[in-house]
C-alpha cells in the first residue's frame, strides 16, 4: 500500500518558487490500477518521480507498506527502487546497442543476482511481455511497441509490487498503445501488481479502475471507474465523452 500525505515539492526558478506539488494526499491499495491525468505542468511527473523514489519531496510523508521513505538515504532508496518498484518511461530509456536480454538483465546486475539465475529470470520477464523470441535483438532493431515491452520486462524482472509508468503510451501509436494497456491489465489481474500510470489520453485512462486528476499541483478529482474498458475496445469518436460523469462513481 502506498500512502502520501500533504506532499509538497518546490522548485526554485531563479528567485521565484514553483510549487510542482502543493499539498497532495493519496492512498493507493495493493492491486489497484490507477491513471493520473492532468494538463502539462500540473505535477503528474513530479508525483510519479516521488512515488518511484527517483526524487524526494520538499515536505510531506510517504509510506510504502507502512515504511517511511522520507528519512532514507541514497542507498536505501536505491534498494527500494531495485526491489519494490518497476518504472517505465515515455522514452523507453533502453541502453543503446544492447540486446533486449541485456537491457532486462540490468536491474539484476545491480541486485547481486547470480549469473545463471539472472538469465533465466530475464527470459521469463521477456516471455511475460510476449518477446520471448526477440531476446537477442538490439534495442535499435526493435519497434517502439517492442522497445516499451522490453522496458516493461526490465521493470518486472525484480518482481516488484508496484509498476509505475510515466506516459508509457505517449510515444506510441494508438493501436500499440492499446496493446501496452492490455499488457498492464493482464499484469494487474494475473499478478496482482499495483499499477499507476500517467496519461494525457482519457481513453487510455478509462482502462483503469481509478482516475486521479491533477491541476496546479493539487488533486482536483479522484474518481472510481464503475466499468473499466477492456483492452481492444474501439476508441469512441468523442474522446472527451469517454470520461462521462455517469460512467464514473465519485469518490466519497
Amino acid at each position: 500500500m502506498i500512502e502520501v500525505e500533504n506532499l509538497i515539492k518546490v522548485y526554485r526558478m531563479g528567485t521565484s518558487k514553483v510549487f510542482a506539488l502543493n499539498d497532495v494526499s493519496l492512498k493507493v491499495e495493493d492491486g489497484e490500477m490507477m491513471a493520473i491525468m492532468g494538463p502539462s505542468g500540473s505535477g503528474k511527473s513530479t508525483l510519479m518521480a516521488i512515488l518511484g523514489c527517483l526524487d524526494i519531496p520538499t515536505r510531506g510523508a510517504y509510506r510504502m507498506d507502512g515504511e517511511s521513505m522520507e528519512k532514507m538515504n541514497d542507498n536505501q532508496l536505491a534498494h527500494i527502487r531495485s526491489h519494490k518498484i518497476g518504472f517505465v518511461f515515455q522514452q523507453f530509456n533502453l541502453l543503446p546497442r544492447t540486446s533486449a536480454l541485456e537491457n532486462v538483465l540490468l536491474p539484476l546486475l545491480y541486485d547481486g543476482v547470480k549469473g545463471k539465475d539472472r538469465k533465466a529470470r530475464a527470459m521469463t520477464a521477456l516471455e511475460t511481455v510476449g518477446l520471448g523470441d526477440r531476446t537477442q535483438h538490439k534495442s535499435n532493431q526493435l519497434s517502439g511497441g517492442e522497445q516499451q515491452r522490453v522496458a516493461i520486462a526490465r521493470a518486472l524482472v525484480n518482481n516488484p509490487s508496484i509498476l509505475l509508468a510515466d506516459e508509457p503510451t505517449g510515444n506510441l501509436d494508438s493501436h500499440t498503445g492499446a496493446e501496452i494497456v492490455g499488457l498492464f491489465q493482464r499484469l494487474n489481474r494475473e499478478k496482482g501488481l499495483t499499477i499507476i500510470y500517467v496519461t494525457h489520453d482519457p481513453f487510455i485512462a478509462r482502462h483503469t479502475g481509478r482516475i486521479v486528476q491533477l491541476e496546479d499541483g493539487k488533486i482536483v478529482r479522484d474518481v472510481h471507474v464503475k466499468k473499466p474498458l477492456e483492452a481492444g475496445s474501439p476508441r469512441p469518436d468523442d474522446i472527451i465523452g469517454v470520461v462521462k460523469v455517469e460512467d464514473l462513481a465519485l469518490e466519497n
Partner: protein
Amino acid sequence: MNLFENFRIALRALAANKLRSGLTMLGIIIGVAAVVALMAVGAGATSGITSSIEGLGTNLITVSSGRSFQFSGGGPGGQQFGGQSQSLYYSDFQAIEKAVGSAAEVSPYYQTSANVINGGLSASYSVTGVTPVYAAVSAYTLARGRFISENDNVSESRVVVLGSQSSADLFGGLNPIGRKIQIDGITFSVVGVLDAKGSGGFGSADDLMLIPLQTGYTRIFGGRAVSGGQRVLSGISLSALQADQIDPIISTVEYTLRKRHGLTLTDDLGFNVSSQSQMLSALSGVSSTLTALLGAIAAISLLVGGIGIMNIMLVSVRERTREIGLRKAVGARRNVILLQFLVETLTLSVVGGLVGILLGWAIAMLVSASGLLTAQVTADNVLLAFGSAALIGLFFGIYPAYQAAGLRPIEALRYE
C-alpha cells in the same frame, strides 16, 4: 555486481567510442613510452660511463697538467677555477715515483697526434709515449706480441704497440707483428697488439698507438714536449696497490708537486689530481641527474595525457547522463556508478600504460640498435611508468566518476 562485470561494462562503453578511446589512450601511451624510453637511455648512459671509467683501471689516480679542478664534493673548496696552470715535468714523475715508493705503480705518458703511414694508408692517430707499467696501470692486456719494455725506453727503440682498432684499420686481418709503419716520417716496427677494451661512454679506447716515452721525446714529440728547458708530460697515472692507499697517495702526490713547483698550501695547485672513484661518482651523479631530468620531462607528457583522460571522461559523463539516470532508476547505488566510471578510466590508463611500455621498450631497442648507446630498460623504470599511469588514471578518473555518481536519478533522466 563484481569487478569483472564492471570491467566488461567499461570495455563495452569504451568500445562504443573506439576512436575517442584510442585518442585518449594515445596521450597515456606517449607519456609512458617517453618515460620508459628516456629512463632507459639515461640508465644506459650512466652504466656506459661507469663501465668506461672502471675500464680505465683499478685504483686509478690521474695527474694532469691544468688548472685545479675538483669535482663537486671533492674537497672543502668545491669547484675552483682560476690560478695558474702548471706544466707537469718528467722530473715531477721521477719525484712522485720516489715519494710514493712501492705503494703504487706510476705511469708517465705524453700524448700527441701524429701522421701514420702504412704503405698507401695514411691517417692521423693518437700516439702516446709510455713506460712498461702503462699496460698494467691502464688495464690493457696484450692480444699478441709483447709490450714496450724498459730496454726499449733505455735504448730509445723505434717500436710500437697498436690498439686493436688501430691494428684493424692499418692491417685488416693480417698479423702486424714485425711489420713497419711510419709515424711522422720515422719508421717503427710493430711489436705488439692490445686486446680490445670496447667503447664505453666516450669514444673508443682502442684506436691508439703506444711507443717508448724516451723514443717519443727524441724522435717524435720535438719542441711540443719541452717547456722551460724541461721535458713535459701529458699526465701521470698511478695505480694504488691497496684501495685504502688512494687518499694518502693523492696527498703525497699533491705535496710533492707543491714542493717542486714552489706552491704554498694556500696557492692553487695548478694540477688536476683525481681518483677514479671521484670521477665515477661525479660523472654518474651528473648522468643520474640527467636521467631524472629526462624522466621529469616525460612525466609532464604523462600528466598531460591524464588531463586528456579527465577531459574525455567529463564529456562522457555528460553525454551519458540519461544512461546514468536509468542505471540509478533500476537500483544502481552511488558507489556502483562511481566504480563503473573509475574502472573505465583505469582501463584506459592501464591499457595505455601497457602499450606505452611496449612502445617505450621498442624505442629503447631501436636506440641500442642504432649503436649510439645501449639503452637499458630496467624493471624499476617499467614499474614506475606503469604505476604512474595507473595512479594518473585513478586521480583524474575520480572527479568525473564522482560527478556521475552524484547525479539525482530524476534530474539525470530528464537531462537533454
